[in-house]
């Protein structure tokens, strides 16, 4: 997908470099020409993807998930007889650029709706833009759930959540983990909203189950050293390390945890390490970790097999997919279904059509968008990292599956 952007930019840059007025006019005029020539006006969707910067590692699956879905929709004849055109913008993991690109996509590229952003901070940056411009944003990532304080990043009628929140990602497995691995939790996470709210929910459920949180530690981004935390873990003797570090910090921590010989002494449960991160950990360091998400490449659902076949045919046998990529994939398909149902490309109509919309072909199993709070209802999987895995295709084994998990109602003024 980067090529897509590069070629667009590259061609316009080359044209400018010629420095001729004629070339300049041609560049400006070309959209009109294209529009007249096209059989039908495409429906344009702006995709905000972190192709560079700190979340680069997630960028590929993120943009590819959407791209694959768009290709499938167009191959099947498009929506309302019109093809879908994806306009990719790389916001370089910079929230200022999220705002800039969201505005540019809406005002200059005239997109009909937006999809993407990765972290909650990115989404919160886009919130005011989509509110002011009255455009939809389809958000793909697992996140902390909606609390009114963060409006308009959440609790925003124009933002639809295609990733799981903590009561879907964590709660379904709490009883199993406490029963089989112990009830003393040591919580370690990155120092921002998602880990803190995830831990808040986890503590609530843990207290219900009679468990105990022995420590709750937050680590600044880009921390290379974990010695003091490892020492603290040894002293407090928890049963389960409940882990919500993100990005490269999760790899740095897990590697040092393993080097300190602690893998065998503690149960390690992470709500962050999907395929991307676990690949970075390698088979030795990650062996035996528990991971929970709404999607894994190794789940046995028949939808997934067909989906991966198409995905890997397009991007190669080693191409990574993960929960975010699938969130983007579902967002594109459900966006298209909603437009078809609405019969027109207009924000209010698509918004109404998305509510209670079901999508039976989702790779993780059938999903449904709630009308009440714009939160997706998804399956949830607890997996264990297989010892000696060789690729993403044999990385996880299923421990427990819940085919459909309703979230806790968002703490917003409902209905949205």
């Amino acid at each position, binding site marked *: 997908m980067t090529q897509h952007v590069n070629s667009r930019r590259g061609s316009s840059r080359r044209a400018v470099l010629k420095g001729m007025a004629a070339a300049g006019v041609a560049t400006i005029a070309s959209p009109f020409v294209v529009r007249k020539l096209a059989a039908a006006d495409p429906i344009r969707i702006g995709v905000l993807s972190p192709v560079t910067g700190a979340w*680069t590692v997630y960028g590929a699956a993120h943009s590819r998930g959407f791209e694959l879905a768009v290709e499938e929709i167009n191959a099947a004849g498009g929506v309302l007889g019109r093809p879908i055109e994806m306009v990719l913008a790389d916001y370089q993991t910079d929230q200022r650029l999220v705002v800039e690109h969201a505005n540019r996509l809406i005002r200059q590229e005239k997109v009909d709706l937006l999809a993407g952003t990765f972290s909650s901070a990115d989404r919160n940056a886009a919130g005011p833009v989509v509110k002011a411009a009255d455009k939809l944003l389809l958000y793909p990532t697992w996140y902390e759930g909606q609390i009114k304080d963060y409006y308009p990043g959440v609790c925003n009628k124009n933002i639809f959540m295609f990733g799981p929140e903590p009561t879907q990602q964590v709660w379904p497995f709490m009883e199993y983990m406490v029963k089989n691995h112990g009830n003393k939790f040591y919580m370690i996470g990155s120092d921002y909203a998602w880990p803190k709210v995830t831990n808040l929910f986890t503590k609530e459920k843990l207290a219900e189950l009679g468990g105990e949180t022995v420590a709750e530690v937050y680590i600044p981004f880009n921390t290379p050293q974990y010695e*003091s*935390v490892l020492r603290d873990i040894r002293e407090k003797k928890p049963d389960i390390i409940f882990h919500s570090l993100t990005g*490269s910090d999760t790899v740095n921590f897990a*590697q040092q945890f393993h*080097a*300190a010989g602690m893998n065998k002494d503690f149960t390690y449960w992470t709500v962050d390490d999907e395929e*991307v991160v676990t690949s970075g950990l390698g088979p030795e360091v990650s062996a035996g970790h528990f991971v929970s998400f709404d999607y894994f490449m190794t789940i046995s659902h028949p939808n997934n097999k067909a989906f991966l076949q198409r995905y890997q045919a397009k991007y190669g046998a080693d191409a990574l997919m993960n929960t975010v990529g699938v969130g983007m994939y579902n967002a594109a398909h459900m966006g298209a279904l909603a437009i078809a149902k609405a019969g027109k490309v207009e924000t209010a109509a698509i918004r109404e059509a998305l509510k209670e919309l079901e999508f039976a072909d989702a790779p993780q199993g059938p999903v449904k968008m709630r009308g009440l709070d714009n939160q997706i209802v998804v399956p949830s999987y607890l997996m264990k990292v297989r010892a000696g895995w060789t690729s993403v295709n044999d990385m996880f084994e299923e421990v427990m599956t819940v085919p459909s998990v309703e979230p806790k109602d968002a703490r917003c003024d409902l209905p949205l």
Partner: protein
Amino acid sequence: MEILVSVLADTVLITLVLAFAAFGLAIIYGLTGVINMGHGAMLTLGAYFTWWLLDQGVPFVPTVLLSALAVGLVGLAFEHLLIRHFYGRPFDTLLLTWAFFLVTTEVIKIVFGTDFRNVADPIGGDPVNLGIYQVPTYKTVVALLALAVVAGTALVFFKTTLGVRVRAMTQNREMAGLLGLNVAAMYKLVFGFGAAMAGLAGGVIAPMFAVQPYMGDMFLVRSFFVVTIGGIGQLLAGTLFGSFAIGGLETVLALFSDQVIAQIAVFFIAVIVLRFRPQGVFSGR
């Protein structure tokens, strides 16, 4: 007692690992005066070369040596093509080396991909249990290697004619040139060696960290603090003290507070120190 021993041991290990990561910068920035914003990218490049060579089946020790050599050559080429025209113009070199970081990072993404890459611990196995302290084996080896590299360089720097020449060059470039030293070659040598040291460090620490295109960023700011706190051009004492102040101290402080506060406190202390000793703790200049 147990805590004291383990904190002490951790502090020493962290200090030495950070000193290793910062050493390439200490050489380039300290001796040639080039504000090398590309230091992080050089570390990252070393880590990626290491990952790639291991993937090709090359054993670990030759791999990291080759990685150091390769990054050293990249550094030499960069110096020859661009940097050598800009010595004595710190702001220009800052922009140039920043460009080096941007270009190198994009090239890494194109060549090696954007996924996390994994370099397995070459020693592996459990830490050695000494009763009061569990010695993490690989990290200890890295720390000892860091000590050897820093001390070895210092030995060359202070005890050989080559060292005298380099020192002459850093103290008074024009005079050294007038006295017949080939200053241009010396700068090239120092720059290339600094780059190679960054590449070596990147390769050696790769098994301890996430190998991804922005890996070196984690050490860029810390390395600059290490060098400025220790004293620019103070290769041995300066690098070790600076690494303790930026890395080791954090572990000690984390005993009394949490990690967030410890990290803020460390940089706060660093800023205070620089306010009163802008030339760095060990600089006589």
